[in-house]
């Protein structure tokens, strides 16, 4: 394993390196100085935690690395450590995230700002180790902040921002950074790495107001009855509204400090005069950008709205961004079986069909499930189809020959 980048660069200096996405995340986690890391191996999350284990083994990060016997315990270890006042990190994906799910709800309810990287992967059955967003979507109601990143720089930068957002005393919520498994975790891309000094200035040590200590013997996780439970849930919902401002503010502060915009709630590309807007999350937005560039060369008014933050759902920003546009085409790598695209149904909920603000039509495409390649043609074909005739719900690049049953 390669030696970690030295931390001796001084303020304002950054270094550009060619790193695998997993390494970029691990190195940026290191820069955040977490006290306790706990993880259980699962493809394609493994490279992240292997890198971190090496960083700790080399003494480049002074942290406890707890190798546990399941994802349920990985989440429980960071829960216990977080409640004791530690900055914590874990990473997982797919079945691992689902095994954690019970703990994820608990972490959010206990208001512990854990940071988790979800190396997005499909969910069994059938078992499939490749990328889609079904895993993280299953955690969307858990009280975690969820950010979907497009590339490795964004994944790495979001690591630093995740603590800044979650640990704010007015927020105190966990953050899940969703990065596409293999497509990003195993891809080499150039990454600008800030100096430790700059990260330390941006991200002060975690100093929670309440934590487990005999000095002030507090009770965490008491049983709450019908007379107060609803208020606890309300408070998280109320905080989620504040999170939207915090995410935008943090993105601005980050840009000021490190000179690049890694994004806030949403991102727009060629959207100003667009008659057709493609909507997507994660790495597929990169492919969408190529498609839009080509269509623009043909004189077509096409643009992109990238949903970076899925929880809290950026209703106001999206309503504004999609207002009155002729065609909205939502692409997504997950489905609520028996309903349809999750992102699309949430976008549809923003508009009253009779309002003049409503888009002309909203089409929904499920794409890239279980790691099916998303090519420019996949997107192009869907766009052409939706522009001719809106599509309520369809699967892109479905191999219909495979669907023919036989007996």
């Amino acid at each position, binding site marked *: 394993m390669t030696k970690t980048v030295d931390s001796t660069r001084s303020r304002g200096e950054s270094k550009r390196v060619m790193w695998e996405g997993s390494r970029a995340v691990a190195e940026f986690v290191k820069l955040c100085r977490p006290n306790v890391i706990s993880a259980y191996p699962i493809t394609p999350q493994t490279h992240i935690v292997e890198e971190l284990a090496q960083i700790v083994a080399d003494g480049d990060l002074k942290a406890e690395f707890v190798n*546990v016997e399941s994802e349920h315990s990985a989440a429980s270890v960071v829960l*216990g*450590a977080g*409640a004791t006042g530690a900055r914590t990190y874990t990473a997982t994906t797919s079945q691992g995230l689902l095994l954690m799910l019970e*703990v994820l709800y608990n972490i959010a309810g206990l208001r512990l700002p854990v940071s988790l990287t979800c190396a997005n992967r499909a969910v069994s059955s059938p078992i499939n180790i490749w990328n889609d967003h079904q895993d993280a979507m299953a955690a969307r109601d858990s009280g975690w902040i969820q950010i979907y990143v497009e590339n490795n720089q964004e994944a790495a930068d979001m690591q630093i921002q995740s603590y800044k957002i979650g640990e704010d005393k007015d927020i105190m919520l966990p953050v899940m950074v969703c990065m596409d498994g293999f497509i990003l975790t195993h891809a080499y891309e150039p990454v600008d790495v800030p100096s430790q000094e700059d990260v330390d200035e941006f991200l002060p040590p975690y100093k929670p107001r309440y934590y487990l200590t005999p000095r002030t013997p507090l009770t965490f996780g008491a049983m709450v009855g019908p007379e107060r439970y609803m208020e606890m849930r309300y408070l998280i919902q109320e905080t989620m509204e504040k999170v939207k401002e915090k995410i935008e503010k943090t993105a601005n502060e980050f840009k000021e400090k490190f000179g690049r915009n890694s994004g806030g709630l949403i991102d727009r590309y060629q959207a100003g005069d667009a008659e057709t807007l493609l909507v997507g999350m994660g790495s597929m937005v990169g492919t969408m950008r190529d498609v839009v560039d080509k269509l623009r060369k043909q004189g077509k008014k096409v643009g992109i709205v990238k949903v970076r933050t899925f929880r809290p759902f950026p209703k106001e920003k999206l309503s504004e961004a999609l207002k009155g546009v002729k065609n909205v085409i939502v692409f997504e790598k997950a489905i609520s079986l028996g309903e349809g695209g999750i992102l699309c149904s949430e976008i549809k909920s923003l508009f009253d069909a009779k309002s003049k603000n409503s888009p002309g039509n909203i089409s929904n495409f499920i794409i890239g499930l279980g790691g099916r390649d998303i090519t420019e043609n996949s997107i192009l074909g869907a766009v052409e189809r939706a522009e001719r005739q809106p599509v309520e719900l369809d699967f892109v690049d479905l191999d219909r020959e495979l669907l023919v049953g036989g007996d």
Partner: protein
Amino acid sequence: MKTTTKNLLAPGHTACMGCGQSLGARLVMNAAGPNVIVANATGCLEVFTTRDPQSAWEVPWIHSLFENAAAVASGIEAALKALGRKDEAKVIAQGGDGGTADIGMGALSGMFERKHDVLYVCYDNEAYMNTGIQRSSLTPLDSRTTTSPSGNVSWGNITHKKDLPAIAVAHGVLYVTTTSVAYPRDIEKKVKKALSIEGPKYMQVHVPCPLGWYHDPAQTITVARLAHQTGLYPLFEIQNGQLASVMKIGTVKPVEEYLKIQGRFRHLFQKEGGAEEIKRIQTIADENIKKFGLV
């Protein structure tokens, strides 16, 4: 939160009359002292002590879920180390027999194997009492629970207690002990000893449950004592894998004396063939006495 009592598990909680677990937990906490952090599994103990906005705990205490107390405690211990606060507190994880021996078994095994400096206390009342007396893997042979009822073709629970202390020993846990609310001094002594040892420790406290065992709430201590005196609940210490001590039984009592004062075994005295079942239970007691040298 502050009270005038010295008890670190304060009175005023909502446990049932004669609850063995509340007594056991109070004895454990008082022996451990205030410089602890406690991770508690879901169960009676969590429910009757922390009905929000009140708490009976005078020590820092966290409840997360049913099966993860050992993992939460692992995280607490890791955090204390990482933050340079190791001297601040000893870490205790605790739960009932279901949260420990069944659903929490994986997390407990992980905590043992990773050698966390944590004392795990299992309050063994031999069934899922919080949910209404369902059978666990620590429920004894022929005990009647709501999911192992006696019936025309059933004597109740068909297995006898999983040997959790042996499982702890197999993990290389340096200090493994069983104790009972019948003997407060024994609990106190063993908690103090356990906390003086670095690494994982396992303690199983026998705690009668009047509600689930169908005995007179005034007889909790008597019932617990008889479990020891019959040989059905041997009290021992295993240190470094070796039997280090046992609490001897003066005069061994027949298991009938223990069984007949509990409704959960009443069917053994009412149904034809019960005597044969009681003999099977006597055999378990006899084997314990032999194995641990209790007389």
